[in-house]
């Protein structure tokens, strides 16, 4: 009796091992992942089961028999589950179907994606986060501290360009009403065509960074919340705009809704003479830093002059301040102001800052001369040291109705930026109208 059991066990052992080896051969030799899985799942489990049974019989003790039976049961129960899950995952992950397969019964049922760790072959598109080149005013990197050179002096003529088309971005937020009203006033005054554009330049915020527990969920939540906020803002602003223009019968105005990414906005702007934006209009529909505002990006793209409206003053603009620093763009502020044709009656103050840097003095003088030549009243203020106190500057800026500057913020990123005070930011916060030519 015992001998028969041993012979049976030996047969099971060798047979099971052979079946497992055949399964291994199948995994290596078959042509597509699904066939390989079929070999691994069926033949592999059958072979391992036979081998385990043989082992149990060979020991002959109840404990060993029970253990091997438990292992076989476990294998038979779990192998179908595991291989089904793997097969589905392989299909979704885009594993190739062999040439021998006649039909694909899952096409249209499951989506086929790409899973590959090789970054050159991943389907993720790595678009640049910063579509516009950075303004490098006051950069710590020496070669970017260029004074206004010959390139800057060869500028377009400073003749005012007639305002023919004005674009008003309907982004929403607290300053939108003011911005719309300002745009309508400008368009009425110049007889220009007014276009209200909503939705453009905004994209839902997506953050794929480490978000603690449930990162993907929170990232998704963030994106959908930001999208909903954007749509709400755009709808409210559009409605307000429609009401405002219906109250102005003679005005050539229209409203558009365009969902374009921030880097496409510059293309939409082509052909407009002025862009009016509310203050605090961020690209995600939520309040954001000055340097992330849409106005900031547009100013860097230099497609059209940008007018950022924080609030409207009841009186017409009488005092304008020009902020001249060491960046190249600061040399063209007067030209931009003259070209825009805005505020022809206002008195202009030029505020240099950090004039110990090369070229600042020269830019201030040449711009004052240019403005005087065009019959403006110009005063050059004493230079501002970069170690200034924000409340002092605010107190001095309160009397101005508008500011002209090259960018909204010169802070870039990094640890030290969090403790710096930026002239541009203080000005943009204090002065109601900001022109970024």
């Amino acid at each position, binding site marked *: 009796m015992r001998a028969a059991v041993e012979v049976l066990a030996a047969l099971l052992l060798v047979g099971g091992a052979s079946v497992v080896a055949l399964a291994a051969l199948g995994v290596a030799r078959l042509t597509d992942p699904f066939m390989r899985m079929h070999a691994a799942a069926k033949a592999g489990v059958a072979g391992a089961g036979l081998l385990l049974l043989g082992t149990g019989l060979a020991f002959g003790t109840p404990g060993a028999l029970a253990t091997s039976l438990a292992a076989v049961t476990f294998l038979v129960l779990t192998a179908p589950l595991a291989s089904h899950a793997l097969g589905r995952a392989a299909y*979704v992950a885009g594993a190739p179907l062999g040439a021998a397969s006649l039909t694909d019964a899952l096409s249209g049922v499951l989506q086929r*994606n790409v899973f590959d760790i090789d970054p050159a072959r991943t389907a993720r598109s790595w678009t640049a986060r910063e579509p516009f080149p950075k303004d490098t005013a006051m950069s710590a990197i020496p070669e970017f501290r260029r004074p206004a050179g010959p390139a800057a002096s060869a500028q377009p003529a400073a003749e005012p360009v007639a305002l023919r088309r004005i674009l008003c971005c309907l982004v929403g937020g607290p300053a939108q009403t003011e911005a719309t009203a300002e745009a309508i006033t400008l368009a009425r005054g110049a007889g220009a065509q007014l276009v209200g554009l909503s939705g453009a330049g905004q994209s839902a915020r997506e953050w794929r960074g480490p978000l603690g527990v449930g990162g993907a969920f929170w990232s998704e939540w963030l994106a959908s919340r930001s999208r909903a906020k954007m749509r709400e803002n755009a709808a409210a602003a559009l409605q307000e705009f429609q009401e405002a223009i219906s109250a102005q019968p003679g005005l050539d105005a229209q409203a558009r809704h365009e969902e374009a990414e921030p880097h496409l906005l510059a293309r939409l702007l082509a052909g407009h003479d002025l862009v009016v934006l509310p203050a605090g209009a961020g690209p995600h529909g939520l309040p954001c830093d000055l340097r992330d505002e849409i106005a900031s990006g547009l100013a860097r793209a230099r497609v059209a002059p940008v007018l950022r409206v924080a609030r409207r003053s009841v009186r017409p603009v009488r005092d304008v301040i020009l902020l001249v620093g060491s960046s190249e763009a600061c040399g063209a502020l007067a030209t931009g102001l003259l070209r825009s044709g805005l505020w022809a009656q206002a008195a202009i103050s030029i505020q240099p800052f950090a004039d110990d840097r090369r070229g600042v003095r020269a830019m201030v003088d040449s711009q004052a001369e240019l403005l005087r030549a065009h019959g403006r009243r110009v005063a050059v203020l004493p230079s501002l040291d970069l170690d200034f106190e924000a409340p002092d500057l605010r107190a001095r800026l309160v009397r101005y109705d508008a500011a002209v500057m090259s960018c909204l913020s010169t802070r870039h990123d990094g640890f030290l930026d969090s403790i710096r005070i930026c002239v541009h930011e203080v000005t943009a916060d204090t002065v109601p109208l900001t022109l970024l030519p």
Partner: protein
Amino acid sequence: MTTGLIPWAAAIAAIIVALGCIPVAARLLSGPSSADRVIATDMLGLLGVCIAALVALIAWHPAFLDIALGIALVGFLGAVAFARLLERASVAPAQEPAE
């Protein structure tokens, strides 16, 4: 009385299973897609179960059978985890840019 057949059969089976590891390892190294590698890993786990059982026989110690059971358990969990990874981490295929 024993026939003395079991140690021989176990040795032969161990050689066969060990030979079976070679093509699976080759597939694991060369598998063109990630799914192939996952399948090969799964198959290696199964071969590990067989080897543990055969070691139990050769060493004549039933405790090694528990190891076979453990490997089967971990192999299942591993396969499910890999399936989840493949499904979750795959991304939509690249679109042709508009311009």
